[in-house]
């Protein structure tokens, strides 16, 4: 299957994520931690199709339906949402935002492909092209959508300030970047690795 996807640079993906988050439809639901399931189901009116063992069988929590009218979701994970199991909530939030990335960025391309199975869709989404895969673009969209830059910078500055007050030479300490990411991540309801990726891609604090 042809895995080509239209070229979108980071700036284009970020712009799409920011515009989507700031759209009038999402007003009142754009403050982190963002309730992506509410946005998908109630605002976008997408169908949710709970599937038992989706994660066990495919190693994914969610997948856009081939006709982009809804989202398959691992049933156990879905029912655990908002139950206080933080790692489940973090993972599902990102997974759902990733599918919204496909929905926003790739709807026309998906419609043109007429996928019949989740497997076909995954094969297409992961296939590399010259400019990166649909999976890469959806990940970048998800990160930017869930972690708005201005709020990230504010949280980052605050966390750095707190550490500077306690230990002036903290930046030289091994693992300081990860430590800050872990401090900041709960504000956005995502795993700290998502924050580290934002630090990196948005050149806030790049990995060495």
């Amino acid at each position, binding site marked *: 299957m042809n895995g080509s996807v239209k070229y979108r640079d980071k700036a284009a993906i970020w712009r799409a994520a920011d515009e989507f988050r700031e759209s009038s439809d999402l007003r009142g639901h754009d403050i982190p931690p963002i309730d992506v*399931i*509410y946005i998908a*189901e*109630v605002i976008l*009116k997408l*169908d*949710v*199709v*709970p*599937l*038992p063992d989706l994660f066990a069988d495919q190693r994914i929590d969610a997948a856009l339906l081939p006709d982009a009218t*809804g989202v398959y979701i691992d*049933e156990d994970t*879905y*029912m655990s*949402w908002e139950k206080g199991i933080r790692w489940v909530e973090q993972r599902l939030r990102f997974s759902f935002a990733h599918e919204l990335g496909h929905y926003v960025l790739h709807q026309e391309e998906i419609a043109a492909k007429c996928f019949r199975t989740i497997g076909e869709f995954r094969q297409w989404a992961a296939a590399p092209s010259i400019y990166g895969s649909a999976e890469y673009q959806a990940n970048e969209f998800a990160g930017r959508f869930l972690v708005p830059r201005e709020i990230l910078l504010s949280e980052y500055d605050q966390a750095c300030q707190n550490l500077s007050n306690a230990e002036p030479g903290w930046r030289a300490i091994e693992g300081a970047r990860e430590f800050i990411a872990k401090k900041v991540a709960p504000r956005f309801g995502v795993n700290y690795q998502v924050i580290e990726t934002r630090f990196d891609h948005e050149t806030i604090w790049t990995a060495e």
Partner: protein
Amino acid sequence: MSFGERVKELRITQKRTLRQFCLDHGHDPSNWSKIERGINPPPYDDKTVERWARQLGLKAGTEDWQDFMDQAAVARGELPKAVLGDEELLRKLPVFFRSIRGAELTEEQLDDLIQKVREAHSPGERKRKV
């Protein structure tokens, strides 16, 4: 709009996600999703459909309530109870269906035909005939 689409619309009107709605009312989300997508038919007993209608925010006796019950019947491949209870209307239905089959009616023509059938059974119409 199909029965499933109506169920989904009513749930979204309540601003409840599938998960929240199912937790609120003790439904299985997988089965409820199938109802909304028209894969599973509505229940065959009226009591359950009435309970669903209440859960979806409809009030008994309203036009919306009756439409919901009618949509459930149609989705099950049945005639709505209100039609089944009207013997005069039932007798006319074969002619009505034959008209629809033979004529390939437009939406507008179909509405017109339905209206004529309704008028033929309204109290005012009956009075005039007497």
